[in-house]
């Protein structure tokens, strides 16, 4: 009996250790989303500043980096210069697109005028686009390939290295 208890205990402990190991080995910022490998949900939203409609479909044929953010989000301030600098070097081969939700157009404009911009930013008024993309917090960034398929998602502020690493997933055929 003691031997059986020992074996059962060992199996349970091994299973728990396995789960812990798998969990600890993951990068919490690299979110597993069911949208990976699926077509990016279609949207056409109004651009901040110009009022023009920007349709995601118009960027088909080149990778698109969709960055969900808001002016009230501290990490978004930290990430903004990285996005602006990378957009300056990578565009027009790669398209950057900012999607702002839970915010006012006045604040967004003020933020962009003060801190600079090198790519279009659109407003998601009722947050429906954010919901369709499974956004839980900001900043969250999607990497869409030239065929409009989502290849990666990153949660949290990105460094240039992280951005490049995720972009590679959207560049490989």
């Amino acid at each position, binding site marked *: 009996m003691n031997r059986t208890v020992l074996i059962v205990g060992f199996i349970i402990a091994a299973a728990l250790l396995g789960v812990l190991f798998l969990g600890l080995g993951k990068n919490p910022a690299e979110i597993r989303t069911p949208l990976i490998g699926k077509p990016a949900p279609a949207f056409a939203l109004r651009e901040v500043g110009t009022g023009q409609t920007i349709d995601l479909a118009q960027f088909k044929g080149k990778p698109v980096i969709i960055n969900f953010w808001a002016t009230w989000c501290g990490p978004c301030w930290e990430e903004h210069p990285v996005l602006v600098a990378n957009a300056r070097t990578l565009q027009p081969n790669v398209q950057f697109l900012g999607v702002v939700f839970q915010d006012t157009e006045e604040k967004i404009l003020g933020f962009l005028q003060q801190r600079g911009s090198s790519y279009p930013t659109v407003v998601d008024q009722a947050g429906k*686009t*954010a919901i369709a*993309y499974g956004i839980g917090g900001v900043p969250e960034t999607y990497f869409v390939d030239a065929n409009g398929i989502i290849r990666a998602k990153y949660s949290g502020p990105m460094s240039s290295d992280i951005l490049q690493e995720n972009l590679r997933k959207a560049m490989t055929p």
Partner: protein
Amino acid sequence: MKTLALVLLLFATQDLKVPDAAQFVGAPKGTPVSGEQLFRETNRIGGLLRCPVCQGMAIADSPSEMAVNMKGQVRELLARGYTEEQILKYFELSYGQFVLLKPKFEGVTGMVWILPVAALAIGLVIVFVKLRKLEAPRTTNNQPPTTEDDPYVSRVRDLVSGGKS
């Protein structure tokens, strides 16, 4: 002035397009609900969906803007005739199973349902086997143990009787 504002608003929003549930779960399979039933159903289904920015709260209970938006989406889908199954599927396709407060009985999440029952069953089996073993001596040997065969007792007895003689 009001009319001009309305015209401008219409002009500004006419080309806008947000992702539609139909892209994910197809056309509505139910009947549109309204009024009091829409309010009740929105709260009921909202109670099944986790607020992604809160600590384990349902969107029906959370005051956060994200939860309010998600609840608005549930209300809109119900009003358009989407069924509960379709609405839950729509959110699951965006957020993953994490968004469902009641895990589905499939794949790895099935373990959430199976493991507690399995642990209880194993525990009961162990207790049953242990009890049977405890009862075993009484059922197989009803006589109280004798000292006849015990070599230690025999030796003591011999020594005691030897001492007397």
